[in-house]
């Protein structure tokens, strides 16, 4: 076992043991056996445990009453230096503000991926949300419903349908209501795309939008919403599934204009592809590519397509 694997195991044990609920005698025995197995296990465990215990100082400070600390911090009173430090830790640590420390006031949790990043979120009800590159979602929910706001980027939703607890995705001025479904929502600067893979979902537009206020989507449907207008495309379900290649880190193109190909790559990479000239921009491209390997694509463009490629430190310029 590598040190990293050992450490991961040790961390799992530690967290499980330190959870107030559910630690049993036989768990302790299994842990002891694991620690006895190799000194490396014991060392890794002690090291993490010591770090975790140092963080206990935070608990000690918080027992001076969380709300009192927050109020003091808010009023900018001049309490003891330690208390200021404690409040600063609490506020600094949560970043979003005080509401999280107040009981029964669920704050939205924010999840972000970096450019080129991917992340799977598992919700308590068994639903899954996969975030693609450069994506931000906010999750909030209560007994009545589950609400996800897609701030930007793209996410694949696999939702456990629950008629008593509706699941809604908010994206700009549109709402997508789950009716038992798998769907993809992509939010770019100027448009929103909702593609349905399985089941059903309802796309709702604001009241002042043109056309129907609500569209029920079926598998293969792709709705493209721009400002106050929504267009519905019927596609083969396989084509919708193809757009999910990003879950494996791939981009799939089929007769896609090079300009669009470049735009896709640019979502995943800091090094940008720039295609200059209409002749090059309209060139149709097909194939599978590694989303994070723009250099390979550039070599293909040069070698196979015979385009002129200029590779600079932070951009690649393609001309015909």
């Amino acid at each position, binding site marked *: 076992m*590598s*040190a*990293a694997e050992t*450490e*991961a195991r040790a*961390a*799992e044990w*530690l*967290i*499980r043991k330190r*959870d*107030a*609920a559910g630690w049993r005698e036989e768990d302790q025995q299994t842990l002891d056996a694991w620690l006895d197995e*190799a*000194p*490396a296990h*014991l*060392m*890794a465990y*002690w*090291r*993490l445990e*010591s*770090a*975790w215990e*140092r*963080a*206990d*100082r*935070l*608990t000690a*400070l*918080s027992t001076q009453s*969380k709300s009192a600390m927050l109020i003091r911090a808010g009023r900018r009173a001049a309490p003891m*230096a*330690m208390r200021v*430090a*404690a409040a*600063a*830790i*609490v506020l*600094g*640590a*949560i*970043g979003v503000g005080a509401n*999280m*420390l107040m009981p029964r006031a*669920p704050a939205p*949790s*924010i*999840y972000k991926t970096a450019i080129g990043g991917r992340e799977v*979120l*598992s*919700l*308590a009800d*068994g639903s899954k949300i996969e975030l693609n590159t450069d994506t931000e979602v906010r*999750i*909030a*929910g209560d007994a009545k419903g*589950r609400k996800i706001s897609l701030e930007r980027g793209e996410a694949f939703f696999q939702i456990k349908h629950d008629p008593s607890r509706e699941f809604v995705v908010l994206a700009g001025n549109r709402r997508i209501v789950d009716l038992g479904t798998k769907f993809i929502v992509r939010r770019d600067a100027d448009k929103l795309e909702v593609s349905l893979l399985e089941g059903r979902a309802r796309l709702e537009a604001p009241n002042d939008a043109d056309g129907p206020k609500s569209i029920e989507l079926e598998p293969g449907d792709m709705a493209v919403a721009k400002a106050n207008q929504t267009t519905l495309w019927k596609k083969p379900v396989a084509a919708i599934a193809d757009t999910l290649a990003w879950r494996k880190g791939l981009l799939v193109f089929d007769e896609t204009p090079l300009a669009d190909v470049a735009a896709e790559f640019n979502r995943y990479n800091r090094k940008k592809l720039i295609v200059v000239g209409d002749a090059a921009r309209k060139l149709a491209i097909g194939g599978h590519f590694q989303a994070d390997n723009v250099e390979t694509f550039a070599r293909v463009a040069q070698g196979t397509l015979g385009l002129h490629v200029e590779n600079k430190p932070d951009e690649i310029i393609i001309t015909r």
Partner: protein
Amino acid sequence: MGDTSDFERGETTLRKAGEGPSTAEVKAWFVREVLPLEATLVQFLRKASRNASDLDDLRQEVYTRLYETAKKEIPEHTRPLLFRIARHLLIDRARRAQIVSIEAVENLENLNLAIDEPGPDRAVIAREELRRMQTALDQLPRRYRMAVVMRKVEGLTTREIALRLGIAEKTVEKHLTEGVRALANILYRERTAGGEP
């Protein structure tokens, strides 16, 4: 420097006839004496080993060897022993490797001086520890931080955190385990938080 003490240590071991320190004693020593040296150790390993990818494995191996020694008797001088072990480990590895890295050997020689300097003051006053914790928490990725703060500051269980955030318990557990790993790395590996001038 180490000759006479090594000799004495041999004698003590004989007298004690196999009866070593208790696990609790070894643990207390490990936390008190070894962990504060981790930043320097990692720095040493990073400079001396050209392959930075197995730093954690090297560190773990040093700790393991150190533990085997301490199980017999708690070392009196941890710092020189720790670096002696690290040096031997690197030399063993260099021998085993097909290509002996001249650079590595040179580094080992050059680093002797730096290693034997006295370490930073071990006594950390409460406020400094707090600042360190704050810096450490600030550096944690946001998701991990939220889970750690909810557990540590609010004392919530995994299940309660899961309910509050509307995510699965498994995910919370993952955030907490990754959180504690990151915390340990920040606290022990990096000297940024108050260690260096």
